[in-house]
């Protein structure tokens, strides 16, 4: 496969200042060990300080045993797409969780699903069957476009574990499993499905996450089981020059996402397979904040061994929140923790959760959250109390639509 040709695109000029911020990120022991339960609609609650979330809608969208491992939402069309462990995906209206369409075609595990950022009528999903499929949500039937990398001598397709589409909708970047000793980052034209090139020297193990830079169209980050977060400048015409940084988490990466921080740089939040969180500045030498599994569970008072981390989300305010849960003998707990400097504070519990959550989508515009997981349930959470009134007599929430899942 040929090396990546330079992608000619309008680039945003960003001043990168020499940062000598190397504040060590030792896991601080100072947590607020507030209980995991949020207070109910008590009259004295200042809703600005402590937002309670309630379960606004919930629907069992698949049989139990069929997990929802990946999902994403579209704020513009108010829809959510889920990838099931039975190799199908579905699209729903967020209001009422009405099923719109099912997409079938993948032959093996679906490893990620996203809306095309430049086209809300298109859903894209990757799979270990070696394809990235583009689906037109307005049409039933087969996928509109199938992308694959069959450039190997054996003609075998490279299994995809991750992908992202550039904001402009022009480029697809997908990461593979270790394939014949190499881990590939494959680039494609997201409109024609043509392969543009790839990198295979920057990671030594499965590439589990791919994320385009939120602003710079020529910058993309990849996360791998080898523990590295690589950041590439795609303007370069060869891999050696394209690799700008390798951030070493010294572990294995489960989830990776960009977020906004003050100043010229961007942040990268990283969830490790061992359920720890690292926060990095994109030009850092080490994470500026680390939260161990122990620290996270201490904040919720849940047992360490029972707790897990789903995602890190960024609110419109810029603040970061950790979505964390715990599977106990009798319950499936879920809560949002607020990251404040090096501490974690319980922001709100998410009462009524019924499953081990595997994926989530946060709408930073209205603060709503959608979760899905191993119970095959889609849950929509909204801030405020259910059918509640605050002291001023204002009705805080809209009517909740709750369909019985069982």
């Amino acid at each position: 496969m040929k090396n990546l040709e330079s992608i000619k695109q309008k680039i945003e000029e960003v001043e990168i200042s020499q940062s000598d911020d190397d504040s060590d990120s030792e896991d601080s022991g100072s947590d607020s060990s507030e209980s995991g339960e949020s207070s109910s609609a008590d009259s004295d609650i200042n809703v600005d300080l402590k937002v309670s979330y309630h379960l606004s809608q919930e629907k069992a969208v698949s049989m139990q045993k069929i997990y929802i491992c990946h999902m994403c939402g579209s704020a513009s069309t108010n829809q959510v797409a889920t990838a099931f462990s039975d190799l199908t995906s579905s699209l729903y209206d967020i209001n009422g969780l009405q099923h719109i369409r099912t997409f079938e075609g993948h032959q093996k595990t679906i490893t990620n699903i996203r809306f095309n950022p430049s086209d809300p009528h298109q859903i894209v999903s990757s799979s270990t069957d070696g394809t990235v499929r583009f689906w037109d949500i307005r049409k039933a039937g087969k996928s509109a476009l199938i992308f694959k990398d069959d450039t190997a001598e054996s003609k075998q397709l490279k299994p995809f574990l991750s992908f992202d589409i550039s904001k402009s909708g022009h480029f697809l970047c997908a990461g593979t499993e270790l394939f014949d000793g190499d881990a590939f980052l494959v680039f494609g034209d997201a409109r024609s499905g043509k392969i543009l090139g790839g990198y295979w020297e920057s990671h030594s193990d499965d590439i589990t996450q791919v994320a385009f830079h939120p602003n710079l169209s020529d910058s993309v980050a990849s996360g791998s089981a080898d523990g590295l977060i690589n950041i590439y400048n795609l303007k370069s015409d060869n891999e050696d020059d394209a690799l700008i940084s390798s951030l070493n988490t010294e572990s294995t990466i489960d989830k990776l996402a960009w977020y906004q921080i003050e100043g010229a740089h961007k942040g990268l939040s990283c969830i490790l397979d061992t359920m720890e969180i690292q926060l990095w500045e994109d030009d850092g030498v080490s994470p500026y904040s680390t939260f161990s599994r122990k620290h996270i569970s201490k904040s919720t008072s849940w047992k360490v061994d029972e707790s897990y981390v789903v995602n890190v989300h960024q609110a419109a305010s810029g603040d970061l929140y950790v979505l964390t849960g715990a599977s106990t003998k009798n319950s499936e707990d879920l809560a949002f923790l607020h990251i404040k400097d090096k501490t974690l504070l319980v922001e709100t519990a998410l009462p009524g959760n019924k499953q081990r959550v595997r994926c989530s989508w946060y709408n930073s515009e209205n603060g709503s959250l959608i979760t899905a997981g191993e119970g095959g349930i889609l849950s929509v959470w909204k801030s405020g109390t259910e059918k509640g009134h605050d002291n001023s007599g204002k009705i805080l929430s809209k009517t909740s639509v709750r369909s019985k899942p069982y």
Partner: protein
Amino acid sequence: MTSKVSRDTLYECVNAVLQHSQEKKRNFLETVEIQIGLKNYDPQKDKRFSGTVKLKHIPRPKMKVCILGDQQHCDEAKANNVPFMDVEALKKLNKNKKLVKKLAKQYDAFLASEALIKQIPRLLGPGLNKAGKFPGLLSHQESMMAKIDEVKATIKFQMKKVLCLSVAVGHVTMSPDELVQNVHLSINFLVSLLKKHWQNVRSLHVKSTMGPPQRLY
């Protein structure tokens, strides 16, 4: 773990492994590894089972670590008989793929000073990445020897498609106590990551490289 695997069983098992390696001595230092067989776990839909953990006692004492250091770290490395390279030495490699590959092969792991670690892609290209040996950070806030020991004591585990996993947790010249501690710590750690904990464990074995597996659970 004590309710599932008693202390006695653990010692019995470890002693059996050690005894066997004594009876049939090999001309290399045998590693001791634990093998964990899983059940009620579907690699296609359950969360990936992988990560790193630091053990109490160094399982691979012969592990070679090279320091890519600033002046201070190079001096310290020299004083401690630890192999090192400074910026100039790295520049001399001229980003030559063969030389970088050779360097990667010479050592099991690398540690780099803050001043250097950002420059690695520029100085060496992706050679260390490809070899799976991108350096860990060596800061001035911690002792070099302590960090080297930490690197030597950290093991990585990863379950891919089959339902069993092998991890090296020690070697045959460790004392039974040390081995027991390492085995105990690793098993507890691995089990804590499983959704159903012990209900996801079908079997546990301990074995030396050439020896027969000794069942623990």
